[in-house]
């Protein structure tokens, strides 16, 4: 027991600090990817609902392919092929090759994947808004941008939150997939610690607990956000 505590201690020779740095990176990636996914999702949903035929077709191809191909494959593909493509473009245009940071690449890759799922969640949520509320906003002279900001986004939020909460939790765990491309996040940190100390059970259990805690804290925050987003809606309990 004393050995376990010593191994997990946040200061060397304990590996707790390493795990926490890994967690920090995981959360950074997850938050960045989720945020990028939201932006892509809003644009994607708008494009699918209101865009012209070309935009709609392109978005259909995007959401279909991303959701059809295993994420690990997409990550490998986008990470290696994507960075290679950027560098080839840069050299072709006469610029220096650049080193793309793992953080940026990870956010971009996972965000691209999240965006496809997010698009569908948002599309469903926008369709669930009573159309009269959108119509009222138009009837009072709101511009499309104002309407999106003041009416559509807040009105669709209650319908989007369950789906988006799922996506956030998936994002936190998908960060583990980035271990295969050598990004130092929680899973890779755990593997390193376990490999060096041979205390596999201890470290992987610890990582499991950390992922669980992350989920529990997330649920707490999501619950608060959901109560706020549903402020105008009578609770189902009262309606029963």
């Amino acid at each position, binding site marked *: 027991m004393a050995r376990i505590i010593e191994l997990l201690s946040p200061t060397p020779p304990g590996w707790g600090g390493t795990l926490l740095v890994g967690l920090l990176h995981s959360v950074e990636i997850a938050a960045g990817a989720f945020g990028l996914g939201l932006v892509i999702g809003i644009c994607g949903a708008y494009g699918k609902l209101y865009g012209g035929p070309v935009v709609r077709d392109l978005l259909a191809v995007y959401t279909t392919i991303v959701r059809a191909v295993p994420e690990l494959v997409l990550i490998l593909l986008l990470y290696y092929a994507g960075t290679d493509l950027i560098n080839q473009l840069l050299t072709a245009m006469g610029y220096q090759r650049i080193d793309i940071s793992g953080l940026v690449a990870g956010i971009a890759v996972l965000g691209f994947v999240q965006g496809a799922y997010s698009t569908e969640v948002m599309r469903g949520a926008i369709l669930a808004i*009573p159309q*009269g*509320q959108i*119509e*009222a*906003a*138009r*009837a*009072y*002279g*709101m*511009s499309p941008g*104002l309407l999106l900001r*003041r*009416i559509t986004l*807040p*009105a669709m*939020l209650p319908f989007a939150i369950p789906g988006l909460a799922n996506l956030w939790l998936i994002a936190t765990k998908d960060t583990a997939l980035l271990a295969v491309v050598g990004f130092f996040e929680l899973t890779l940190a755990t593997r390193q610690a376990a490999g060096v100390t041979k205390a596999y059970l201890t470290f992987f259990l610890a990582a499991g607990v950390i992922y669980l805690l992350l989920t529990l804290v997330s649920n707490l925050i999501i619950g608060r956000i959901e109560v706020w*987003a549903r*402020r*105008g*809606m*009578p609770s189902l309990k009262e309606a029963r």
Partner: protein
Amino acid sequence: MIAQGTAPALKYTAQNDAAEAIHVENLHKRFGELHVLKGVSLSARDGEVIAIIGGSGSGKSTLLRCINCLENPTSGIVRVNGEEIRMKADSHGHTVPADRRQIERIRSKLGMVFQNFNLWSHMTLIENVIEVPVHVLGVKRDVAIAEAEKLLARVGLAEKRDVYPAYLSGGQQQRAAIARALAINPRVMLFDEPTSALDPELIGEVLKVIGDLAREGRTMVLVTHEMKFAREVATHVVYLYNGLVEEEGPPEQIFGAPKSERLKQFIRNIG
């Protein structure tokens, strides 16, 4: 401009010298194969209350919704405040507003009240009422709030200012929607069957508010099934049948001495 509060006395002189707030000329609207409006003309001068009546599918709601381009007319002229809405054909051959800013500007002068209230569910009543003044018209927030409080008090909802629409009765929601429309100080108010979604015992409270507005000289175009009410408040009644104006005139004539057979039958059936 007609002095407010004296509208009944000026009821008919209004038609001659007041400025024209709404002018609709030879309006057509097709939904694909369906020809809903087949050349309708309509005029509302300042201080007039125009009631549009007609059976289901006669095109009366479509006509109202063409005035602020919630539906784009297929052809014809719509002038609001003397300004003609410019239309153009899009790539599919549909007629659409040529200038989005123009249509937004015109819409912000027309206070629309819907059959299903359409209050914004994520905002309290006071937030609903100040939304357009603050975010579309650029009124200062505290000024808008003071004005909104007066309007809510006027429709009898002062103590409900911080309540969300879902917690209110249909009649209360519709009165709040009328306050929202008044908050933009509209040139014309458009009512699209404002009592059709209400329980019978709630209709009276909403009609009372609308009636008060009519009596103080608000310009209105009102689509309604409430014939008794139309007779009381309207200065001019338009009876639509199958996409055309079948008969129009002062309410005494329309309800008291209708000429067209169809109108006679419509009044018999509905009354």
